[in-house]
């Protein structure tokens, strides 16, 4: 029996998507080949519609020959949904359980991996200032999307989002008022430059790049869910290499090391908040 039409159509689309991702990698060195398919397919379908392309093959043809399409295509391929102090209990656990360990270091390096538009970086910077750690901390905020990195570096957010940020900050055990850290004007909240004085914003891919520094804390939340198992393992391997002995790894509320090849290298430090500690190998 021949396959029903819908089945062969779906297969063709999957082939086209794999070829498109390969083309983007070979031409522009952005590697989405290890991204989880269901979500990539959804987002590429939106991009295909936006660019008015009949098929993913047509989109591939266009993006290969017109580099100006890339920034907007990257906007579709990378998910930029973030908020300050997202999952307040995560930040409360960082404050109450992780910070006491971090205090014992004379200087600290913290990696915010997949920082998107910077909300998480500013959350950490504010928390660290409240805890008196900011002056001794170097932050690395990395992402593959240059537009997101630019916005992260600016630290300007719509004022109508700040109400949620303020509530999150309070629930995280914030010791000051969030309004101490931004100035509001023209419907936007502009966060204090001093928060990013020791922050480096940098292009870095968890799919293709290597480790660049030894860190005491890596926070990478709601990034791994977009990766397939192999790419998840690669990324977690990078975090493991980067972390000092007994360093901390914070993941998203629904992310876990349980299925990872690196699970043995970590202990569950704060289970509900998905904070792991690298084992002290002897």
């Amino acid at each position, binding site marked *: 029996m021949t396959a029903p039409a819908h089945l062969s159509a*779906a297969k063709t689309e999957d082939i086209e998507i794999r070829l498109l991702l390969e083309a983007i990698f070979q031409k522009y060195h952005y590697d989405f080949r290890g991204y*989880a398919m*269901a*979500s990539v397919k*959804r987002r590429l379908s939106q991009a295909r519609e936006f660019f008015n392309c009949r098929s993913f093959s047509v989109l591939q043809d266009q993006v290969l020959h017109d580099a100006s399409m890339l920034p907007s295509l990257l906007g579709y391929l990378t998910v930029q949904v973030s908020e300050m102090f997202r999952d307040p209990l995560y930040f409360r656990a960082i404050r109450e359980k992780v910070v006491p360990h971090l205090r014992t270091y004379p200087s600290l390096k913290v990696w915010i991996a997949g920082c998107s538009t910077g909300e998480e970086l500013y959350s950490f910077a504010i928390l660290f200032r409240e805890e008196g750690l900011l002056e001794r901390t170097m932050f690395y905020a990395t992402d593959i999307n240059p537009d997101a990195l630019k916005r992260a570096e600016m630290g300007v957010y719509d004022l109508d989002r700040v109400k949620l940020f303020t509530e999150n900050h309070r629930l995280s055990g914030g010791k000051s008022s969030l309004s101490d850290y931004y100035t509001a004007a023209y419907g936007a909240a502009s966060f204090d430059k001093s928060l990013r004085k020791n922050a480096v914003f940098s292009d870095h891919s968890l799919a293709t790049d290597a480790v660049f520094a030894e860190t005491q804390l890596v926070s990478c939340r709601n990034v791994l*869910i977009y990766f397939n198992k192999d790419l*998840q393992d690669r990324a977690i391997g990078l975090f493991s290499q980067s972390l000092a002995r007994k360093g901390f790894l914070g993941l998203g*509320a629904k992310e876990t090391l349980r299925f990872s090849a690196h699970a043995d290298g970590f202990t569950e430090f704060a289970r509900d908040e998905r904070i792991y500690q690298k084992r002290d190998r002897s």
Partner: protein
Amino acid sequence: MKTSAPAKSAATPATPVEAIVIGVSAGGLKALSAILPGLPRDYPLPIMICIHLPPGKKSIVAELFDDKCALSVREAEDKEPILPGNVYFAPPDYHLMVEPDRRLSLSSEEPVLFSRPSINVLFETAADAYGAGLLGIVLTGANNDGAQGLSTIMLAGGTALIEDPAEAYQAAMPQAAIEACPGALVLSLDDMAQYLQRIGQTMGANA
């Protein structure tokens, strides 16, 4: 053909069902309580459920049904393999998707039709993974999420069931699904529960 099912409550799909997806909103706990607890522990199909809940709170829905049901019920974990006899709820504030290799994945992409989790997102990705082997169900709700997804399931050759709007706690969601999917079976919750038990037995007998 499903569209000309002779006796609605007696009909079973032509293609063997491999997985079930359910979308439900307002009134969902009660509707699911009419369906899930009747299924046996060795039910041969996996069930994935998207229920609209207020974000920012830990949900106890999965625990609640795990207590009530013979099936194993829990919140979905990212990249976990989908197993028969298991019920997976979308966690609040995440989309639940099915990967082509039939693992679950989560996403915090933008809400769709103001909803995260979105029924349409679950249904469309599951239709892609299971094709004609998917059974989609739309239950009570006060919005129109699920209509588009259910129509995608039917386009892929899958089967669609909709709760009778006349008995639904909120009729809007089933009504929208009926309009988008004229060929779907419209059943009362009792008939739906029997339908699911029956396809389970059919599958079990074939296994």
